[in-house]
């Protein structure tokens, strides 16, 4: 069974600074997909960024980027120029074909003014 681990239950960052959220996963599969989802207080689950395991290049979406280390089974999220609206729970997720998406326990990020 695949497991996803987020070792940081809570983090905080000053507005405009950079923060990195950690995620590791365990799988015997070679081809799979990784995601970061954001859940603000509105509780809506919003897809932030995704990475395909067979692509070596790290994904980026504006201020959000990942550091994907396949051998180490690590998938961290970097948020640059943090904004107050980035305050949310962040979930790392793993899925491969024909299976359901598995989530980490989440990291609560607070951006301080």
């Amino acid at each position, binding site marked *: 069974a695949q497991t996803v681990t987020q070792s940081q239950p809570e983090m905080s960052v000053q507005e405009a600074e950079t923060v990195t959220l950690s995620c590791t996963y365990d799988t015997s599969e070679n081809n799979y997909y990784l995601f970061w989802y954001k859940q603000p207080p*509105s509780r*809506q689950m919003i897809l932030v960024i*995704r990475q395909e395991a067979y692509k070596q290049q790290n994904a980026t979406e504006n201020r959000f980027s990942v550091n994907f280390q396949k051998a180490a089974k690590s998938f961290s999220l970097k948020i640059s120029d943090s904004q107050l609206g980035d305050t949310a729970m962040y*979930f790392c997720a793993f899925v491969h074909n024909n299976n359901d*998406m598995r989530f980490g*326990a989440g990291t609560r990020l607070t951006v301080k003014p």
Partner: protein
Amino acid sequence: DTAVSQTPKYLVTQMGNDKSIKCEQNLGHDTMYWYKQDSKKFLKIMFSYNNKELIINETVPNRFSPKSPDKAHLNLHINSLELGDSAVYFCASSQDHFRVYSGYTFGSGTRLTVV
């Protein structure tokens, strides 16, 4: 136009009652899911349907019964509600069970409170 819509958004009910949560997606996706998010925010898969067919049924009490009348709808019926059923229930969809590279699209959740 909401892609995945759940109703109701909030549900407060007494122990022992039976309730349903409805979910509809207008994305043309083949696969739909129910997740439960507990008070510690942990998300756990409950069920998955692919084109109206049950494909994932995690260890969930049989008081929970999903129903998919067509591939755009996946409803969740809960019998004999218990205090421990209090949680946020999320519906989600994906293109199909194999093409998951776009991730899942989630509904806005239903907060169920059993008193």
